[in-house]
């Protein structure tokens, strides 16, 4: 770094040494010892303002620290503490004035561990009105975030303007993460600056500061969402995988054998369940281990039936026991006609090895209708199931949905601190 020309003086208030690094550009300088504000244009450094406050703030980056920002060397020459008051609560932040004799001034701001690298804009942005004003600046759309009155509460070092404790300016912030456009209006002038959110580690490395930077708290106005874009990307990946699942479903529907291995009709008129049990003829389930679909098609009419069922392997003696309830009711009332249940029931027995099987059936007939029960049994081998495909699609959708919620929660935290917080609408 080129060594800046430093002018050495003494504070007329406390006698402490004062260095002017920005030379002729310095308008005011605040003594780093007694915090008195002095006139840098006066050869004797006339005292403009005594520091009356009780709380003195120690800058996180000491005055005179040199570092590199965007590849250019800068030196910290000024520090001010400012505040805004919202709903009777004071919010303080720090501003560091950086100086490079060839590049000019730039600023670093810090609030609750969040840092911004700020430069004054060359163009005046044009604000478009509306419920929430916006600015299109360098092709980027900024949304109004907050308007407040900022007050200077503490200063150290030198400044290229006449700074005083208690100075106020109306600030308007417009955000487009990671950028923020800020307007500051005083009685004399309006300035615009463009800030870029930077990590605390970036600042610490730039100025070779010791220890660790304070951890950021909460979400800052122009803090970029680290998961931004994740929801969209996961959504696109979901669509790819969903297409794959649907393609698999189509292939399965086409290639499933659906072998009809048994079909028979039966009639039951007895209401005594103990006397209705019977077994079907033996049928063969061929091929690889696969599922078996049993369809019970009945003539039920305002009645119910319960089927105790067992698919039994005639060779090994292994049985698959299950029960199925079938009911079908219909009628009409003041709301019109209605139906409930179905005359047909389908059930699937999973992973049945090949072999010779028969069904043991014990129907139990309801007493709501005296009509004999006529029912057909249809046994099919290797029938596709849509349920698994639906379950897989639902599971695949979970990560993109969670990412969407996470992004929404981040944005909600950001805007909670703005003039557009949800609670502000009611006020």
């Amino acid at each position, binding site marked *: 770094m080129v060594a800046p020309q430093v002018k050495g003086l003494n504070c007329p208030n406390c006698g402490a040494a004062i260095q002017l690094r920005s030379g002729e550009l310095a308008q005011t300088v605040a003594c780093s010892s007694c915090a008195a504000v002095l006139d840098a244009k006066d050869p004797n450094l006339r005292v403009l303002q005594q520091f009356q406050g009780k709380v003195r703030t120690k800058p996180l980056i000491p005055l005179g620290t040199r570092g590199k920002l965007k590849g250019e060397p800068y030196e910290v020459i000024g520090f001010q503490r400012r505040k805004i008051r919202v709903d009777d609560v004071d919010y303080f932040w720090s501003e560091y004035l950086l100086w490079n004799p060839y590049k000019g001034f730039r600023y670093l701001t810090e609030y609750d561990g969040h840092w911004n690298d700020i430069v004054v804009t060359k163009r005046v942005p044009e604000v478009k009105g509306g419920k929430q004003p916006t600015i299109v600046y360098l092709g980027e759309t900024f949304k109004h975030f907050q308007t407040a009155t900022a007050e200077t509460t503490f200063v150290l070092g030198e400044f290229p303007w006449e700074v005083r404790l208690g100075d106020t300016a109306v600030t308007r912030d417009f955000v487009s993460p990671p950028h923020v456009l800020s307007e500051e209006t005083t009685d004399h002038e309006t300035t615009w600056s463009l800030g870029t959110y930077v990590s605390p580690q970036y600042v610490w490395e730039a100025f070779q500061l010791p220890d660790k930077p304070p951890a950021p708290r909460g979400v800052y106005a122009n803090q970029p969402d680290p998961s931004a874009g994740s929801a969209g990307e996961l959504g696109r990946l979901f669509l790819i995988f969903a297409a794959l699942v649907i393609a698999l479903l189509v292939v399965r529907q086409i290639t499933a054998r659906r072998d009809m291995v048994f079909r028979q009709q039966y009639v039951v008129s007895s209401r005594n369940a103990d006397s209705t049990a019977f077994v079907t003829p033996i049928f063969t389930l061929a091929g690889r281990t696969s599922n078996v679909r049993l369809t019970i098609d009945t003539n039920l009419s305002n009645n119910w039936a319960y089927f105790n069922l067992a698919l039994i392997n005639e060779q090994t003696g292994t049985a698959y026991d299950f*029960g199925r309830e079938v009911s079908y009711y219909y009628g009409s009332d003041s709301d019109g006609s209605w139906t409930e249940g179905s005359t047909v029931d389908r059930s699937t027995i999973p992973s049945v090895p090949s072999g010779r099987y028969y069904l*043991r059936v*014990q129907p139990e007939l309801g007493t709501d209708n005296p009509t004999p029960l006529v029912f057909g049994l249809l046994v099919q081998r290797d029938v596709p199931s849509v349920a698994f495909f639906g379950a897989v699609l639902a599971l695949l959708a979970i990560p993109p949905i969670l990412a969407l919620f996470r992004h929404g929660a981040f944005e909600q935290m950001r805007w909670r601190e703005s003039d557009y917080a949800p609670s502000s609408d009611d006020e």
Partner: protein
Amino acid sequence: MMQRHLAYVVFACLLIATLGFAEWRGWSFSRPTEVKNVPRSVRDNPGSYRPAYLYHGSGRYLRGK
């Protein structure tokens, strides 16, 4: 994009592979009670067989609207 979401890609691939295997083997969400060594006499006397699943009562359906 795949690199950034490798965990999701792996999760999705495993899920789809499991789906394919499940369909191939004929898995189902429900599973009947499996009973071993059912006597051959069931074919001659079907009424003597007692189902292994927990079913009590008539199975009466509570009908109507």
